[in-house]
């Protein structure tokens, strides 16, 4: 239960970071935090009476692969944006031309 509760806290914190932080790197880290939170809930709730259930562990492994791929894509896009605009944050919404 402790794992699951920690996971929920991490998830909430990560989502808050995603919304509140404007620096892109911080947003990407926030994504990793809430992703880990969800994995922790999956593994934490998977143990019943001391018995460890292998299925959620397999799922978390898959989930980690997905989240590594997503992080890599986000980092690549953020770097491209840095090269194009010189800033690690979203450009201001300009007038639509």
């Amino acid at each position: 239960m402790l794992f699951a509760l920690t996971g929920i806290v991490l998830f909430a914190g990560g989502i808050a970071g995603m919304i509140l932080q404007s620096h892109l790197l911080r947003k990407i880290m926030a994504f990793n935090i809430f992703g880990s939170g969800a994995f922790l809930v999956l593994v934490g709730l998977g143990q019943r009476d001391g018995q460890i259930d292998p299925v959620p562990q397999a799922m978390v492994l898959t989930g980690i692969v997905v989240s590594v791929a997503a992080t890599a894509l986000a980092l690549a896009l953020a770097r491209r944006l840095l090269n194009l605009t010189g800033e690690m944050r979203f450009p201001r919404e300009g007038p639509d031309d």
Partner: protein
Amino acid sequence: MIDPLAWLILLPLTWAAIAFLLGPTRGGRIAQAGIALQLVLALWIATEVAGGSSRQHAAGGWRAPLGIELLADGLSAIMLLLAQAVALPLALYARAYFTDHPAGIRHFWPLAGFLLAAMNALFLSADVFNLYVTLELVGLAAVGLVASDSTAKSVAAALRYLFATLVGSGAYLLGVALLYGTYGTVSLSELAPLVEDAAPYATLLAAGLMVAGLMLKTALFPFHFWLPPAHGGAPSPVSALLSALVIKASFYLVVRLWLGLLMPVAPPAAAQLVGMLGTAAIVWGSVMALRQPRLKMLIAYSTVAQIGYLFLFFPLATHTAPDAAQSALQGAAMQAVSHGLAKAAMFGAAGVVILSTGHDQVARLGGITSRLPLTVFTLALSGVTLMGLPPSGGFIAKWLLIDGAISSGQWWWVIAMIAGGLLTAAYVFKILRHAFLEKEQSATFRRLPRMLEWPAFALALASLAIGLRASDLLRVLGAP
């Protein structure tokens, strides 16, 4: 023995990899052949499902829970058919488009292949965790496509879209974790009998998280902020794929979860709230569409509005009489199909206008009627479907939804739908009014290859013709 379920996923993966190695020119040809084969497979599944037998496949011979089970029923057969039927004309269109306008071609075919593979896998998945994985794959491929012409604007739109879709699928994953923690399984068919009225709070929390996450990914108002820049800023073939198909993937998933799993625990107020958000989306999206100076942004906001109709399904199908719920499901499926075809046609036509005149300012469309008559016809026909005029697929969709609203005694949704139709007419006629002006307002009109205009026209025609063959489609849907 060929199993169409497995090959619908393997085939696009294969041609995506080959297209990556061969480069865009030869890769595009292989992609077209692959999509044509996929369409045959999807038709095969649909006829089999309509004949009354749902189809299953255990990938690699591994059974659940460790293996992955694929399952095709009526709803998935329709979505598979829609995805391949939209992708084939778009593949023809995309080849002509990128020959003329090569920015963004380098990764188009591999990413489109991964996108189709991920979507087909999503429509065929039968457990909530595998659905999460496919949902992420769809999102990642779509983000790559948005960024494919790598200008600062499209990269920013792609990154915004990526963050939105990651938050959405993160919420969905937490829901999956809570469901697994409560019931010890992720298979939809095993979960369905376990989830009952008196569910623990964890189930309610899971349901809320999953539905909210998917609404964010489907861009339901007020979560639509990421959609217009992503769909309006991408190259036209990409906009068409995203607006016609990708948002339908997450919508399909909400419907599947709601019908198969969450309905018993869902309070009626939640369904009414979703319906109200849908109504707000119709009004807000249409009003914003009317105010857009650029054609592609107008079409993107029209997608925001049309998504609203899809979500009217929830109040009509939750705790209502069985026949009201059935017409609501039929209406939502028809709306998904006809909007998919019409919106792909519209973005295709917008791409033709851009390539021919070099701009897409609505106010400067004057003269295109005589220069691009087929494209204006395409815009008008797909507008007919969006407005919901007979005999289009959009008409049948709205008819079925209104039928569901009346037979469940919820007349207020009828007002929303009729008002939405009028607002749609306003922005469609805004395009046509400018297009029919005699005075040519563009400096140049370039002649374009025929393979650019005809696929878009075929899609628009299909969105109209689907209304005449609606009974066949609904028979596939109604099969077990």
